């Protein structure tokens, strides 16, 4: 999505720049030495200068969390999470007031995301995550002894990494997910904040510092902003001597910049930019009652973050009776224009390229459409997927002969596939995985998760850590 698609706030540039604070290894850093303009809404803000020496922890220092058991880390995160309600937490309140100025999502949706953020630090989520990623979580807390088939002894530890987390710009409050991930692997963390979410990460870290300013989790965390692609910063710090891993939520130019700096010793763990889809079998179009039900489920999947989320469905492949499918399209359009927990009835209207292409399809009799170019839902029914990327509550319903024919439209960028009925996935899941798909869910449940699952076809925490091995081999082996 381009920033051009978001509304401008006309008075933005005439106001004083919004102050943005940093958080560096447990301490708030204020200052307004550097002026910036936010990418999406063109709002001016000012940050302190980044002190690179303070930001990078030398390798001669052991990670602050090294000797803190995971259980204690989880206890601390859960306790902090309980204090993150924006109704009662002044840091979060202030962050909300500023976030609405720089993020294109409507205030009510941002409030809801703030409300739901603490699920990322629920005890169940954290515990399951550690267990799913590490099998034996003891590797995080110490050296786990092992003996091979020849009787050689060794010990293995998931040693804390030094990490930069490039936070996603489209999901305010998701910073807490990255904070939790960084804490669980006991990393030394630098969060690179996006210009559309400059406040929540620091507000969360300040909340944590209020719980215990000396806690090693707090001491392991820094959050700063620089303009993505700023070579002065990136060329300096993206070096294996300073960081082992860069975890990035997203793709495009921001990632292309990082790729330049990858090499031996510094790895990218990328939560790649994704497109999600739905597949609806002929079973869905046989009665009005079922059509109503699946239209609501499909709309719920399509509208997450007003369709600016990786798991938000954009293409819906359908098979079956045309008449039922047309009814579904009409109903879906109605349901797209509904206020939801993570979506608003009105979203910014689709960008002009979508309008151009849809108008062209209409003029060439290649598409039936429901709705208008007003951000309240547009459904485009075609025989083949459209050439544009549907955004801003635009859904392309593609009528295929059979769901098997839809598999060819799945590619390496396909993340979530909402299926109706879910039983159809038994026959489709292998071809879908082979094509690049990553996750099949019940239609309507794209934003729900089964705890402990893979993310973007991997177990990321396992890839974050520095696997250190101590070996005492006397026989067997290679030479």
């Amino acid at each position, binding site marked *: *999505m*381009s*920033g*051009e698609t978001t509304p*401008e706030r006309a008075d933005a540039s005439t106001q004083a720049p919004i102050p943005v604070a940093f958080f560096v290894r447990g301490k708030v850093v204020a200052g307004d030495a550097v002026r910036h303009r936010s*990418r*999406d809404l*063109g709002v001016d803000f000012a940050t302190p200068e980044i002190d690179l020496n303070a930001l990078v922890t030398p390798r001669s220092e052991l990670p602050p969390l090294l000797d803190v058991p995971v259980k204690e880390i989880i206890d601390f995160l859960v306790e902090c999470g309980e204090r993150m309600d924006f109704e009662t937490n002044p840091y979060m309140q202030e962050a909300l007031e500023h976030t609405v100025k720089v993020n294109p999502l409507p205030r009510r949706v941002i409030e809801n995301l703030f409300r739901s953020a603490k699920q990322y630090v629920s005890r169940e989520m954290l515990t399951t995550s550690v267990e799913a990623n590490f099998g034996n979580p003891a590797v995080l807390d110490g050296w786990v002894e092992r003996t091979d088939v020849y009787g050689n002894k060794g010990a293995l530890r998931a040693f804390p990494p030094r990490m930069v987390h*490039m*936070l*996603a*710009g*489209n*999901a305010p409050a998701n910073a807490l997910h990255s904070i939790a991930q960084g804490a669980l692997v006991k990393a030394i963390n630098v969060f690179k904040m*996006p*210009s559309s979410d400059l406040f929540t990460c620091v507000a969360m870290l300040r909340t944590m510092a209020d719980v215990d300013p000396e806690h090693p989790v707090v001491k392991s965390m820094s959050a700063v902003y620089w*303009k*993505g*692609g700023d070579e002065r910063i990136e060329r300096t710090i993206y070096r294996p001597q300073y960081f082992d891993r860069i975890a*990035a*939520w*997203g*793709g*495009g*130019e*921001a*990632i*292309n*910049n990082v790729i330049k700096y990858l090499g031996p010793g510094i790895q990218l763990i990328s*939560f*790649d*930019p*994704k*497109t999600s889809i739905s597949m609806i079998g002929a079973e869905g179009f046989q009665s009005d009652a079922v059509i109503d039900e699946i239209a609501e489920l499909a709309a719920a999947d399509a509208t997450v973050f007003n*369709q*600016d*989320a*990786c798991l*938000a469905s954009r293409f819906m492949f359908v098979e079956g009776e045309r008449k039922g499918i047309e009814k579904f399209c009409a109903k879906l359009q109605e349901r797209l224009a509904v206020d939801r927990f993570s979506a608003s009835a009105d979203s910014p209207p689709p960008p*002009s*390229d979508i309008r*151009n*292409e849809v*108008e*062209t*399809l*209409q*003029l*060439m009799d*290649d598409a039936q459409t429901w709705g208008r170019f007003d951000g309240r839902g547009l459904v485009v029914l075609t025989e*083949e997927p*459209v*050439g544009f*990327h549907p955004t801003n509550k635009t859904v392309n319903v593609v009528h295929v002969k059979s769901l098997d024919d839809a598999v*060819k439209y799945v*590619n*390496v*960028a396909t993340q979530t596939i909402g299926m109706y009925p879910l039983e159809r996935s038994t026959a489709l899941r292998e071809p879908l995985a082979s*094509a*690049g798909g990553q996750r099949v869910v019940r239609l309507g449940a794209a934003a729900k998760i089964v705890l402990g699952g893979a993310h973007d076809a991997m177990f990321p925490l396992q890839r974050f850590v520095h696997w250190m091995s101590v070996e005492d081999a006397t026989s067997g082996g290679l030479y």
Partner: protein
Amino acid sequence: LESCEAVRSGFIFAWISPSSRLAGGEYFMGQAVDTLLEYISREDAYTIPYADVRQLQVAAINERFQERIGKIKLLALRAKEAEITEIKRLEDVVPLLLPHTAYKSYPESVLIEKRWDRLTKWLDTVATYPVDNVNLDGVDDIDDWVERLAQAGHPVGCSSGTTGKSAILVASRGDNDWVCKDYVVAAAWGSGVKPAQDREVFGTAVVIATVRNEAIGDALAAAYGVPGKGRFPYPVPPITVGSIARMVALRKAIADGTAKPGDIPEYEATSAARQKAMDDAVGICADALIEARPRSIFIIGMWASTYKVAEEIRNRGYCGKDFTGDNTCYIAGGLKGAKLPDDYREYIYETFNLDPARNFQMYGMQEIGSSMPRCREGGRYHIPPWLVCLPLNKAGDELLPIGESEIEGRAAFFDLSLDGRWGGVISGDRIRVDFGPCKCGAHTPSIRDDVVRYSDLEGDDKISCAGTVDAYVRRL
């Protein structure tokens, strides 16, 4: 080229407007348009105060609207949606301006599946004149298709999408005549060098081979070049729409996962051969310019490629003192991503002994037919009365208030000269436009010489977990 005959035969600009016709039986349609187009033959084309033509421009846009609404299907659709039946104020035309991307809105699959009938049908939705007279028998690639359209009276222009689709811009023969005339008039005003058929014309840029670009080159050569000499064409194989389309098709196939590994080296071999031709061209062009150095030269090029030629000339031991002091140039703006030293302009001027004051620069775009020459004293691009500048907000849906001071916004134009397609276009450029007088003494609205694309301004700072498979295709 036939279409530029008028320009060659002594620069008598007898413009016969295609808009002069009776419509509705009540008033003479096209009067305002004609009056404004006639400025091209007048001395004050680039100096007349905006206030003198403002009202006439609104009337002229309405004339164009009334003529075209029944012809251009996309315009009719837009007008119906916006419930517009008449243009009474500039604001009224804003919903009817087509974004530059409208000319890329054809389904990509038609190129890949070679559905020329479908592509023609698409073109018909944006064309003024019905595109139903084109013989599509035996058309194999898009270059053939473009040629057949030209034969049927629909010269098609194209823009190069470096990674994506090309815009396909339908025009009429009248449009090409106009462009030729417009460029020569603009060049003469902007450079202060009167066309006197007294210099050798050199091309130093790689341009897309379209009827329009060829015609402009020929027109400038006819106006400024020594008769019978022709122009020295930059010696590289032309970039055709077909070559761009093949690249786009391969990219799409890679994204879809259907490209075979063997397809990629095949394409890369073609690219490598092209790169070699580009490298060789620099030396060939440098030699030709060195040979021509005792005579007056007119260089038509772009900054990046002209810089390379200049470097080669210096490498061979020649510089400004070897060239006459009478040279002139038309170098199109924008570096298009090329990295050049800060003093690249001075380096080029010095190499060819060019007086910067005799250098013609202009602001224009493939989507419109008319150009805006840069004045010498103020360094600003001047907008003639037949081209209406409509500064919009960044979102491109609101006209900014036009007042005394300079306005920053998204550039949109209504080109009253455009015949073969709708004249209203929204660009991707951010401009600063002033509707008051310029330091140079001209009173036409003028644009500051710092035009940038909004997409370049936004930079690399966007990060989102939502994205498309485009991010998974490495640049070819």
